[in-house]
């Protein structure tokens, strides 16, 4: 697991065509598939540690700062980083560190919610397409083609035009845009599993079709879902923060990272700190998810051979 000549997690993650070929595989056992092997590369431990910390911050941001993200101190506007305010204060005198910490909640929550929409719809459609109905397969595959013909940001903007702005709506919007990512892999995985020997054997033993589907096909298709989710969540967070930056998601004064960066644009001439730290938070989060997703994907592939 040390010096593998080609490790490009995010790249593999983002070319859908490549992913269908690599993630889809015939698992031998669900349990063995998800169990970790003892040795992890250091970058994985670092990234996973960062994500664990992020989860902790998202659960209890108040534990890490004594400031409120929404109330400002007007005698302390646009103060640079100091011991009192490590990330400085914004133009309303609000603590940028507190806002960045509380922002973890929004960015992770919207990203995860979007992911959940993509995963639910993608699994449903992918499984339908992967079963033996040719017509259904053709219809669903075309739907995936249609959805992936639109640039993610623009498709999400179209959805927001109909639904209106807001946190739930951008989660739905990025969720719809992400359906083909899950759907294509799940379809390929379903096709592999339905033709696997253990499914044939189960049929020979005389198990009913619904029982085979629920006990043997579905669990072995679903193992792919967490892997796809960790690979794509970074990209989802990027799109979500972009939409928030455009003003389509949560509105000020919500301490969401994209919203904070949009607000910082007005004070750039005099203060760099409100424009630096929220962006750093987004970038580090996306990097961490890419690394963890890449390693998980390799584990998943390694199991096939």
């Amino acid at each position, binding site marked *: 697991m040390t*010096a593998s*000549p*080609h*490790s*490009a*997690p*995010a*790249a593999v993650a*983002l*070319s*859908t*065509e*490549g992913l269908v070929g690599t993630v889809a595989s015939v698992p031998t056992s669900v349990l063995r598939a998800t169990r970790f092997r003892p040795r992890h590369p250091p970058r994985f431990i670092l990234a996973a540690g960062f994500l664990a910390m992020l989860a902790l911050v998202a659960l209890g941001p108040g534990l890490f700062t004594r400031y409120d993200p929404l109330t400002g101190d007007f005698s302390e506007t646009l103060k640079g980083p100091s011991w009192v305010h490590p990330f400085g204060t914004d133009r309303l005198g609000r603590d940028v560190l507190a806002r960045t910490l509380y922002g973890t909640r929004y960015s992770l929550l919207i990203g995860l919610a979007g992911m959940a929409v993509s995963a639910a719809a993608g699994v449903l459609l992918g499984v339908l397409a992967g079963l033996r109905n040719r017509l259904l397969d053709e219809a669903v595959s*075309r*739907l995936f*083609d*249609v959805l992936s*013909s*639109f*640039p*993610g*940001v*623009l*498709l999400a*903007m*179209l959805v*927001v*035009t*109909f639904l*209106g*702005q807001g946190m739930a709506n951008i989660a739905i919007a990025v969720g719809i845009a992400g359906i083909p990512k899950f759907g294509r892999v799940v379809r390929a995985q379903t096709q592999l599993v339905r033709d696997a020997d253990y499914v044939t054997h189960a049929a020979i033993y005389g198990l009913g079709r619904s029982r085979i589907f629920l006990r043997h096909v579905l669990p072995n298709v679903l193992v792919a879902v967490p892997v796809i989710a960790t690979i794509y969540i*970074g990209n989802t967070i*990027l799109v979500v*923060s*972009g939409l928030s*930056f*455009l*003003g*389509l998601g949560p509105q000020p004064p919500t301490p969401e990272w*994209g919203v904070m*960066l*949009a607000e*910082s*644009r007005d004070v*750039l*001439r005099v203060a*760099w700190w409100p*424009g*630096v730290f*929220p*962006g750093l938070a*987004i*970038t580090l989060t*996306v*990097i961490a998810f*890419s*690394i963890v997703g890449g390693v998980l994907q390799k584990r998943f592939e390694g199991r096939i051979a």
Partner: protein
Amino acid sequence: MPARHLTLRILSRLGTSLVVAWASVTAAFVALHALPGRIEDILAGDVDFPGLREAIAAEWGLDRSLPAQYADFLLRLAHGDFGTSYVLRRPVIEVVGSQLRPTVELAFAAGLLAVLLAGGLALATAGRGRLAHGLASSLELVAASTPVFWLGILLLMAFSFSLRWFPVAGAKSWNALVLPAIALALPTAGLLAQVLREAMEKTLDQPFVTTVRARGVGETAIRIRHVLRHALLPAVTLGGWLIGGLLGGAVITEKVFGRPGLGTVTLGAVLTHDVPVVLAVVLLAALIHVAASTLLDILYLLIDPRLRTT
């Protein structure tokens, strides 16, 4: 039979593009008409007096039956008429057409820069040992994970506010294009370089490279003439996706740098529920994606002679 193979692929692409176009306009039509009175609301804005909604319905043909409206809608689209902007009260084609240039300039400049950066990085670092591998892959990961708008903000801070080399906003002169193009290009370049370098490293391990090397061909020539050509195939697969990404990213970049363009128009239209304008922009993007993918299919044949014989 290369020609037949190619024709089939292009025909299937065109089929997809028609389905894409039809599905998106139909979805938009359904979504708009699913809530009765929705269009009248958008058109009326904040104004309201008795008889206004009826007048609007009559003027925009909303009082007719749904199938008749749908047929009329499709017929007009087929003639290239995208309708009239609800908010600006001007033909959509005019609204979109007048703002196309700055966005195309930006996307094109950024695309070119991304290809040059990614190609340069991959050529220089592929297969040059563990240190180069680690450095290059970290660089690519950081570039690919950085949001376009944050990069834009950082560039503005450094080069417009502190050093004053480039203007803060606008699209009047060539130097107003430099920072937006860099901001949009870097994340794209990161992704492209990851794919390209990985493919080059795989190719460098192949026996034919040893053969070429044994003939006494220099390292640079091997990389450019032989290895890069093989490695281009997976990168080209990513190309269609990247062009879509550049268009989507251009919307955000325009907002950061206060540039006029399609992004500004689209954003305004999204916020005012000006559906015809958003729809036209999204359709345009989808068609560009399909056109680009078709061109890339042809490019495949130019790059890889093996595909011409199958």
